[in-house]
């Protein structure tokens, strides 16, 4: 099929704003009316607040208000309401917000914030997920079972640090062990890490005299912000207006409602005046949500020929001091727990537990990345035990149409895609035939590793997206959607879908970059690599609606039935005589007869989409349909290890994924490469380091390290395109997936090269050295 806009590397609509510095993000407006909020945070990881002295701060120059937890005591959380926006009674992590100072200038607010003195009675801390479930572990939340639930499917355990437990019970595990000829076990640890969106979180709020709350925020979730603020402050949804301009990166970290509460509270404390809270990088890392920690144990059974017979998975998800979306990520790990492999006998227990660390929220991959690390290291261990080739064992077990997921969803070619084909391509691209390990010089070993992944979304069963298309009198179209432009070129991709449907040149589609809940059509939130799919479907429907209107107007103008007409290049022509046509411009605002009388008026197309036939996971078995389709893929890494000092260099990184249909190839390639880069960062250097008192040691970008230029390998991205019948033009989500297995592929390669089992992240030269030394002694 010949496409006009789909499959083309269209330059993003906001490209020139972004390269000229004209692009405006939340904090890029200043105004004399603005007041500034600065947050005071906890210096204690677990403690009762004995006293907060705000008197000195309150009397400092320029200070308008100082608020603490008792100013407006509420509990918040998207799954379970366990978190006060400002600590109340006790603090549960180092960096927890305890007060906000509002002043005329940021410097005055910062100076006063230094004078807020808090004293604590220190309590024993929970230092890791494993410690959280020990008998007699200190409790972070004494009455976890009494918190109000935001969704019904969360199962906190009384008198424990377990806020959620999800189970998969599929098939007959005992039979699986009986059928197994080889059994392998492994344990894996991933630390917390941080999103490090380049734009630190910030939010602005003011309250009008009629009670309307106006918020401007850097968020992936304007509609949830509106909903939560309306609930917590007792307003109609329409009386909360959330503006989200361009967002400077998010990666899941801006999908929950955080700073918005504080901005509204701060504004309330100064009579509704406009307050901005722009946090520092240090607070962005230490005080606001990070990536979960994971401790995983996996036991696999297989026959000698490599066929998997049984899998038992335990995932301890460390969500830090508050649940936020941790329980949902436990669900996500459970529902995909096996990785993309056929397994009929599966047990999985995923527990979401509290620790005295910064709380966690969604992070690119939504639990799938952490889970995939464990699963894919395990597949290599199984291959080693069976003396099988790591690619071969994956190919043998790769999930196929007709198989079922751990939640017992039947897989089809459409909802699964073609993992086999991805493996084949990745194998070729990494030159697997040259062997997994090669000696390439004195102290130099070149090694290759592979990993596979699959991912679907964990959306609410009623997640919906809408789109509105309005026409201008010159025949061009405006597209409005509720998806935020956080970086992936979502709005341009959606414009391409619209251009294709309308058969209109992409330059004639105008997309509004800002989301304003007051007039933008609804969208669940910009997460889970679901925007192209969900909003794309809404855009298709809106386009169809508009086309119907255009055709009926054209039929009047051209004196025929709408069925006799077709749409081509922004015109409507007779099917049997395309030389005769009418321009969109002549009917977009109604058709004006020669005598001046006009029929019809502005063409406005509307479309909406709700996730089809999803169902929650059953509490006892996990049975259910949490997401609409899978995106599977295969990844590979080539690395050179220096055995003299155990430094290594990543030479090549490959991802092949089944994208269904690639709508914008260069944008999609960039997303996958960026995700790989982030995954290799997690593999090689990123971690939050807590000291003995559970204070975060690396809160700046000087000590929390991310990839810099010059250290990147050669990135190769390739596609398989098995149409997803439910997706726009067959598309599947792909924005997160490059991150999912790349760390496992790297560690599979490094483990082989060094002859040791590397089962925790990140891996420094020192980590390998230590393992080798342990092996020697």
């Amino acid at each position: 099929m010949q496409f006009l806009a789909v499959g083309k590397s269209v330059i993003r609509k906001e490209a020139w704003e972004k390269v000229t510095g004209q692009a405006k993000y939340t904090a890029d407006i200043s105004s004399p009316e603005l007041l500034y909020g600065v947050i005071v945070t906890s210096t204690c990881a677990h403690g009762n607040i004995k006293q907060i002295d705000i008197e000195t701060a309150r009397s400092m120059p320029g200070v308008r208000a100082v608020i603490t937890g008792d100013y407006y005591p509420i509990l918040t959380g998207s799954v379970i309401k366990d978190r006060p926006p400002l600590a109340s009674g006790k603090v549960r992590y180092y960096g927890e917000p305890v007060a906000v100072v509002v002043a005329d200038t940021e410097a005055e607010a910062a100076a006063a914030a230094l004078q807020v003195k808090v004293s604590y009675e220190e309590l024993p801390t929970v230092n890791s997920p494993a410690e959280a479930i020990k008998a007699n572990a200190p409790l972070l939340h004494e009455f976890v079972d009494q918190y109000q639930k935001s969704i019904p499917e969360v199962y906190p355990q009384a008198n424990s640090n377990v806020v959620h437990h999800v189970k998969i019970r599929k098939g007959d595990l005992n039979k699986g062990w009986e059928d197994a000829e080889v059994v392998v076990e492994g344990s894996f640890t991933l630390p917390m890490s941080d999103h490090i969106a380049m734009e630190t979180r910030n939010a602005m709020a003011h309250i009008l005299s009629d009670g309307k709350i106006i918020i401007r925020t850097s968020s992936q979730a304007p509609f949830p912000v509106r909903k939560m603020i309306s609930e917590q402050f007792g307003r109609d949804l329409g009386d909360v207006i959330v503006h989200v301009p361009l967002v400077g990166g998010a990666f899941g970290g801006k999908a929950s409602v955080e700073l918005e509460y504080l901005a509204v509270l701060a504004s309330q404390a100064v009579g509704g005046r406009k307050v901005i809270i722009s946090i520092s990088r240090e607070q962005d890392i230490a005080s606001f949500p990070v990536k979960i920690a994971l401790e995983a144990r996996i036991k696999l059974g297989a026959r000698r020929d490599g066929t998997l017979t049984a899998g038992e998975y335990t995932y301890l998800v460390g969500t830090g001091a508050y649940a936020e979306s941790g329980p949902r990520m436990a669900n996500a790990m459970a529902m995909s727990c096996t990785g993309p492999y056929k397994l009929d006998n599966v047990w999985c227990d995923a527990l979401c537990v509290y620790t005295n660390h910064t709380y966690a929220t969604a992070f690119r991959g939504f639990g799938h990345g952490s889970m995939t690390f464990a699963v894919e290291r395990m597949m290599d261990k199984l291959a080693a035990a069976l003396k099988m080739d790591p690619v071969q064992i994956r190919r043998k077990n790769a999930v196929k149409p007709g198989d079922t997921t751990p939640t017992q969803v039947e897989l089809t070619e459409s909802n699964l895609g073609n993992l086999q084909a991805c493996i084949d391509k990745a194998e070729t691209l990494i030159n697997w035939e040259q062997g997994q390990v090669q000696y390439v010089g004195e102290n130099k070993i070149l090694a290759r590793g592979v990993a596979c992944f699959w991912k679907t979304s964990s959306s609410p069963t009623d997640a919906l997206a809408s789109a509105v298309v309005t026409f201008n009198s010159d025949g061009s179209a405006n597209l409005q959607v509720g998806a935020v432009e956080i970086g992936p070129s979502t709005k341009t991709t959606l414009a391409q879908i619209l251009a294709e449907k309308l058969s209109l040149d992409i330059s004639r589609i105008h997309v509004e970059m800002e989301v304003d809940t007051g007039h933008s059509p609804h969208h669940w939130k910009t997460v889970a690599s679901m925007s192209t799919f969900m909003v794309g479907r809404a855009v298709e429907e809106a386009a169809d609606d508009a086309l119907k209107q255009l055709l009926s107007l054209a039929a009047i103008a051209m004196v025929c039935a709408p069925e006799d007409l077709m749409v081509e290049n922004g015109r409507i022509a007779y099917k049997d005589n395309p030389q005769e046509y009418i321009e969109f411009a002549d009917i977009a605002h109604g058709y004006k007869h020669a005598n001046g009388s006009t029929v019809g008026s502005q063409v406005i197309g509307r479309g909406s989409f709700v996730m089809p036939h999803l169902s929650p996971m059953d509490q006892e078995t996990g049975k259910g349909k949490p997401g609409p389709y899978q995106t599977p893929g295969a990844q590979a890494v080539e690395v050179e290890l220096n055995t003299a000092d155990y430094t290594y260099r990543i030479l090549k990184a490959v991802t092949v994924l089944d994208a269904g249909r690639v709508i914008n190839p260069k944008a999609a390639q960039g997303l996958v490469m960026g995700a790989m880069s982030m995954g290799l960062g997690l593999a090689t250097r990123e971690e939050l380091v807590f000291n003995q008192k559970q204070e975060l040691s690396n809160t700046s970008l000087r000590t929390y390290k991310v990839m810099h230029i010059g250290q990147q390998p050669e990135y190769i991205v390739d596609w398989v395109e098995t149409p997803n019948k439910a997706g726009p033009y067959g598309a599947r989500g792909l924005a997160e997936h490059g991150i999912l297995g790349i760390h496992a592929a790297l560690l599979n390669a490094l483990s082989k090269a060094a002859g040791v089992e590397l089962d925790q992240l990140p891996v420094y030269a020192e980590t390998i050295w230590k393992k080798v030394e342990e092996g020697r002694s």
Partner: protein
Amino acid sequence: MIPFDFSYYRPDSAGEAVALFQDLDAQGKKPLYYGGGTEIISMGRHNNVDTGAVIDIKSIPECGVQEFQDDSLVIGAGVTLTQIHEANLFPLLAQAGARVADHTTQNKITLGGNMCGSIVYRESLLPLLLTDCEVIIAGPGGNRNAPVNDIFDKQVQLNRGEVILQYRIPKSLVNSPHVHVKRTKSEKISYPLLTICALNSGQQVRFAFSGLCGYPFRSKEMEQALNDTSRPADERADHAISQLPEPMADNLESSAAYRQFVLKGSLVSILNELGG
């Protein structure tokens, strides 16, 4: 955002700077000399600097010099690491400076500032220690000259109100065979797990280190051990390591044990490269 206030002065001569310092000090302003200012600003953000006045030395003519004068290479304390790298008059210094922070920040960090700041690594100081260069200092009592190894011993040894104007580096050493090694935990732009500068003066190989202990240093004992040509390189390295001035650092960048492993490997390969 620096949450407190201070005054800013940019004097045009060393005399003016020193007099200003005394005056501000007498007023209780706790003045600081200000070079590139990168540390004062970043620590100021965290309220970790206590000052009411900064005295920017970058307009003092002597501080901006970078040229050969007679038998010396003279570099002003206000010369940036980038200017040193671009001129490349002392390649080892150029190299060491080019691994402090990152390139853009090197456009701001000055040679004097890197030595006198509070971040302990001071990696651009290492080549200076190796040359036994002379430091020209202005102070309330007038100018004085002193060997760099006296002016820096674990920390900067300056009297109150004194400011470094220049370094006079023996021209004979600037092109000596040398090696610069910087190892980090993982990311290249990072504090050092260790940094070693080594320079073959003709008589012996000199070594200066950063990242191993709480301060950068040059150790006569270690140099003696490393130059003991009667023993093979790896024994010399072991012996040198046993002479560390204080126990090996054990911190976020590396454990002491791994640091020792890396140090030994680095020393052996430097000895192989520079002879000695």
